[in-house]
């Protein structure tokens, strides 16, 4: 490289700008731009519009663009929406907790005992999650129903005399179905973080006298925390707005907020309220997710 004249040193970007078109930065931006523009137009912009709508109001078919917080007052104040939101949050919290807990041993098994067949194991575990979500929910309805597989199966073996009614159309059915649906999304991030752990650290803990449980709590679990956290987020946030599962297996007790949101874009036809419900759900679930992440970090630090 030649020495730069004093005038260009004052503006350090100048030489870069001369060849900017050939720089990595320009090439990268140019290459990413079609995809980025697509996502800006069909992901970011629509979400900003939802945000804007939530502060507007609607009178039959005309939209009043003056700023109002009325939609949020309804979304947060009406008992029906409070109940739905509360139930959705509870269900998504319970589902993400259970999913992470039942998935962790599987991720652990594949990572530590998968041997040469790790990717085969991962494939086996993820395949059911890639098949149609709607069909799997429908299948749970068939399994848990009054005249369903579980009831008729148990009756034909003589374990029960009459069908158990408490299986379908309640929040338990929603939780079971969602835990099943999101299994792979929890296993994959936990597996990835377990793979990154240096095995000699665990060996060292053993050599220094930690038993199995202590070495797990003090070495493996803290080091796999990033995976556990992403598993939580990737399960908790989408499940809060689940529409199909509550509709098919939830019954009256299992209705969640998505049903109310959908109603504002269908029969109810109140877009601003629907938008406010969507924004409220997103904000509240993000706050809850943040709290869970902090709680997890705190918990892991304590047991260390």
């Amino acid at each position, binding site marked *: 490289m030649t020495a730069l004249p004093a005038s260009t040193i004052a503006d350090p970007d100048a030489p870069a700008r001369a060849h900017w078109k050939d720089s990595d930065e*320009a090439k990268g931006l140019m290459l990413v731009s079609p995809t980025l523009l*697509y996502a800006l137009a069909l992901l970011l912009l*629509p979400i900003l519009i939802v945000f804007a709508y939530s502060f507007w109001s609607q009178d039959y078919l005309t939209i009043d663009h003056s700023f109002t917080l009325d939609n949020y007052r309804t979304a947060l104040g009406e008992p029906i929406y409070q109940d739905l939101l509360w139930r959705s949050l509870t269900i998504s919290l319970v589902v993400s907790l259970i999913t992470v807990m039942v998935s962790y041993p599987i991720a652990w098994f594949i990572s*530590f005992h998968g041997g040469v067949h790790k990717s085969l194991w991962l494939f086996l575990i993820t395949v059911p999650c890639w*098949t*149609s979500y709607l069909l799997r929910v429908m299948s749970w309805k068939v399994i848990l129903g009054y005249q369903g597989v579980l009831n008729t199966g148990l009756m*034909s073996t003589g374990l029960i005399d009459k069908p158990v009614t408490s299986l379908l159309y309640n929040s338990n059915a929603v939780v079971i179905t969602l835990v099943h649906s999101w299994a792979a999304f929890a296993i994959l991030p936990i597996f990835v973080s377990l793979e990154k752990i240096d095995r000699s650290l665990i060996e060292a803990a053993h050599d220094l006298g930690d038993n199995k449980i202590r070495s797990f709590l003090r070495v493996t679990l803290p080091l796999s925390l990033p995976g556990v956290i992403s598993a939580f987020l990737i399960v908790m946030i989408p499940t809060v707005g689940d529409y199909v599962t509550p509709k098919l297996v939830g019954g009256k007790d299992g209705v969640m907020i998505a049903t109310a949101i*959908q109603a504002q874009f269908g029969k109810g036809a109140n877009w601003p309220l629907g938008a406010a419900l*969507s924004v409220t759900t997103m904000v509240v679930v993000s706050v809850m997710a943040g709290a869970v992440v902090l709680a997890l970090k705190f918990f892991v630090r304590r047991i260390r």
Partner: protein
Amino acid sequence: MSGRHGIAKSRWLPAYVVVYLAFLYLPILLLPIFSFNNAAATTFPLAGFTLKWYASLWTNTVMLEAARNSLFVGICVATLSTGLGICAARALTRYRFRGREAANGLLMAPLFLPEIIVAVSLLMIILQIGMELSLATVILGQTVFCLPYAMSVLTSGFEGFDRSLEEASLDLGETAFGTFRRVTLPVVAPAIVSSLLVSFTISLDEFILAFFLSGTEPTLPVYIWGQLRFAAKLPSVLALGSIMIALSIILLTTAEIIRRRAERRIQGA
């Protein structure tokens, strides 16, 4: 007491894995079982073998129309999201530029958003600009949703790529396009095929976006949703569902085989 790496292998863990796999596979194995069952109700004990539910599908013109719609949407979504995914995955793995993290975050965002909010926001913008709901709007929406998956498949394919091969080609006088076609493409082709198959499968099975954005032309999941209200239609829905699940598994297995073969080849080289 401890295993090879000083990591204990419990006797209970393999049993747990088996139970867990049974839990995962139970719902998708039940559909085929009942689709061959000679009874309208899904109860045990089974009532004998029949193919009549499958036979009834061939004469169902509404279903066949929905299948055609799904096929068309799936091919378009697979092409579009893989095309867009190639640009983004290549830019993100090959170049360092400002806003790289933000771009990656935006493209991956659909994974961390409730699908209904993505669907509702798209519905609002589409009706806002005066577009009619049609298969085209389903394609636009599902592409946003498929991009994160297409990109993960493509990124892992592109990351194993040795940059010096391209540099050598350029130094030897090949043009940028020629290099891409004759050096880059053959190496990344398996990832591209995997991405096409995975995106097609996701589109085929995707319900929420199709439900909100399809207007009067249903895709297969939207058609199935409409049938679920009628108990008498359940067995033929089970037959249709079994075909869709079989198709998904075949496509995903093919994608996995292609991906693994490529991985082995790169590692072997």
